């Protein structure tokens, strides 16, 4: 998996980033940045989080 062109980091809490795609509006991809090396386009672990869960996480 890799970050799509239109996706953007919405929020970052320490090493956890919430990435959103503008077409959806309900879900985030939650990724652990410590396992992700920018620019290398390596695979990273992601988890789907609803806005609800994001609000609770925050």
């Amino acid at each position, binding site marked *: 998996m890799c970050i799509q062109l239109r996706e953007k980091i919405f929020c970052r809490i320490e090493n956890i980033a919430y990435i959103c795609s503008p077409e*959806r509006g*309900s*879900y*985030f991809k939650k990724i652990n940045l410590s396992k992700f090396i920018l620019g290398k386009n390596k695979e990273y672990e992601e988890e789907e989080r609803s806005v609800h869960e994001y609000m609770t996480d925050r």
Partner: protein
Amino acid sequence: MSVFFRFSPLLRENVSVALKSIISNRLRSILTIIIIAIGITSLTGILTAIDAFTGNIEKSFEQMGTSSFEISRLYYSTRNADRERIKNRREISFHQAKMFKEQFDEPAIVALYAVISDAVTVKCGAESTSPNVMLVAADEHYIEYNNLYIDKGRNFTGSEISSGTFVCIMGDDVAKRLFKGESPLERVVTISGVRFQVIGVPQSVGATFGGGTDNSVIIPIQCARGYFIGQNTSFNIGVKPSGTLTGMNVLYDKAEQLFRSIRRLSPADESDFRLSKNDALISDFKQITDTVTAIAVVIGLITLLGAAVGLMNIMLISVKERIAEIGTRRAIGASARMIKQQFLLESVIISEVGCVIGVIAGVLIGNAIAMVMGASFVIPYFRIVFAVVLCIAVGVLSGYIPAVRASKLDPIESLRHE
């Protein structure tokens, strides 16, 4: 449905978001669902009970045969003026009823009968029934006129009727209560101090409003005249045509003319008796139940209106509490339309869950009430579809204003909201 969701992934996502939000606000959702469920329970409960009664009573009428008709003094009317007029009518005497039977020479069975009381106690030794048994005085044609057949024993004979022998035909329920499974035939029972020998039990036909043949005792009309029937008792004449249905109106006219002449009415006089055809009785009865149904629907709708206001109130609070969430959704790409859709879906889902619970409870409670009063179990499919559609409407109406309010929130302000 899956095809629909494949074409509309955003809708699918909104349904999922709405469900998650309902689950995460459990207490609030449960309270709202209960409000809707109570409204729907009252609506479907009343309508189910009415459906069960209507079905049962129509069955009873059909069992009597739609071509049969009855001549009686009284009938039920919803109009006060009619009621006053009917109350003052002359009784149909035994003599008049007997004259009709002798002179009516059409191909038909003519039965004479009178309901003496609907509150007698039947005793046999130490056993006795509740004081709610119907005592009917009738002749040997009454059983056939009512489309009954004798299950155990036999019918009255002509000589038993004319000589007034102390014999009786006992309804199935009364026999079961008094003899508890033993044969009631040849046993002697006491009704208001008079002893009768049981000679027959008709087949069970089910009770109507706790009464009906099952809960009655029939005694010979001559015997009843000596012991139970006073001067004021009015007799009924039941006529069951033995031919085909063609020319029925002529038969009704002949019966009416004959009885008018027996009652010595002049051509200018209005008939002071009621010739009631069973099919007309069914339509009279339908008129009454339609009125009751309309009243029940209005009461149910008022309850549901209360529930709808409650749901709208809760949805408005929900929007207010979730301003930050709405802001976040707008920021990550949700359009105003999507926000509106989400809140509308939440409202409709809550309303429909309440509807399902309300329909199940309503059908069970309605049937329980109907069954206690002797009707059989029914599932009112049309009412269920009506309730489901009504709940969608309630969900949309209650959710619309909160949803529009949510969709019009300023995303930046909402995002900042804590």
